[in-house]
């Protein structure tokens, strides 16, 4: 034994016991941490909910994620933790996908909104400029077969 060659037996034991204790405490602690995460599925749900609200404030439609989370909550209330965890996983997938395209969606929504405003704002101008021209064009077109007769000829 290594200890036996260089150190007295008592010192070897004195070093071995704390090492064994540390190993045991690590072995016990690691599953406890994993279990703690598993036992509190609400923590993950809260985290996802915060991300959902952030996305919704950017104008992104979060209906699909909300549906998954709602289903997960119902399953949690029923104590079906496995199925709830699956729903939470699905919600996170959709959420991640939406987050990646959030900027594009927000930009598209802004363009549609302000494009609409610009179009509406240009309506009075278009009426002012185009209406007389269109009206005159239509007026003349409706009377294009009319024949101009001199008053003298008619007599």
């Amino acid at each position: 034994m290594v200890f036996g060659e260089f150190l007295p037996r008592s010192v070897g034991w004195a070093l071995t016991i704390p090492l064994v204790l540390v190993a045991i405490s690590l072995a016990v602690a690691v599953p406890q941490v994993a279990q703690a995460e598993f036992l509190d599925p609400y923590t993950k749900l809260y985290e996802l909910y915060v991300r959902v609200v952030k996305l919704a404030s950017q104008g992104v439609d979060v209906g699909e994620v909300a549906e998954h989370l709602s289903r997960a909550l119902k399953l949690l209330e029923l104590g079906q933790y496995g199925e709830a965890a699956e729903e939470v996983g699905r919600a996170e997938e959709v959420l991640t996908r939406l987050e990646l395209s959030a900027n594009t969606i927000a930009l598209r929504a802004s363009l549609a909104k302000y494009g609409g405003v610009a179009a509406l704002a240009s309506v009075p101008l278009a009426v002012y400029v185009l209406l007389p021209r269109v009206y005159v064009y239509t007026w003349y077109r409706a009377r294009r077969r009319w024949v101009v007769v001199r008053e003298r000829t008619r007599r």
Partner: protein
Amino acid sequence: MNVLDAEVFAVIVAIAIVGSALGIAQVLRPEVVEPFTALGLLNENCVIGEYPEYVFAGREVELCVFVGNHMGYPILARVVYKLGTEADLPTNATPSSLRPLRNFTVLVPHGGNETFKARLPIPENPPEADRVAIILELWLYDPERGGWVYSGRWNHLYVRVVRV
């Protein structure tokens, strides 16, 4: 020759301006002007009225709870059930100081509502009073603070407890 009368043209342009202004206001107005949540207590058939008058100590009473959301974003809502007397009722600013007996957590999308059946336990030793109040409070998860906040919405139903 004046084909289009100037006055008629002015009226048409004025109508176009007013219409355009109204349209722009509709597009730019915020989606939710006055955000609010709603909490409703319904009977066991999930309709208003015919609420139970008597409940039994040590048993459960079934009622329906309605949670509505018009906040502009999905809400994570928790309905907290407490049992007390008239003196224990919450206010619009402060929740009841009683210990919650059961919680129900739901996620309600914007513009939607959630109605669910709630089995409310009546303790073996309910408060000593002629009539007790089934109290439901609505708490919302605050994404900024990361915790539950009392919304100020609450409902109550007075019942008489039958001790078996």
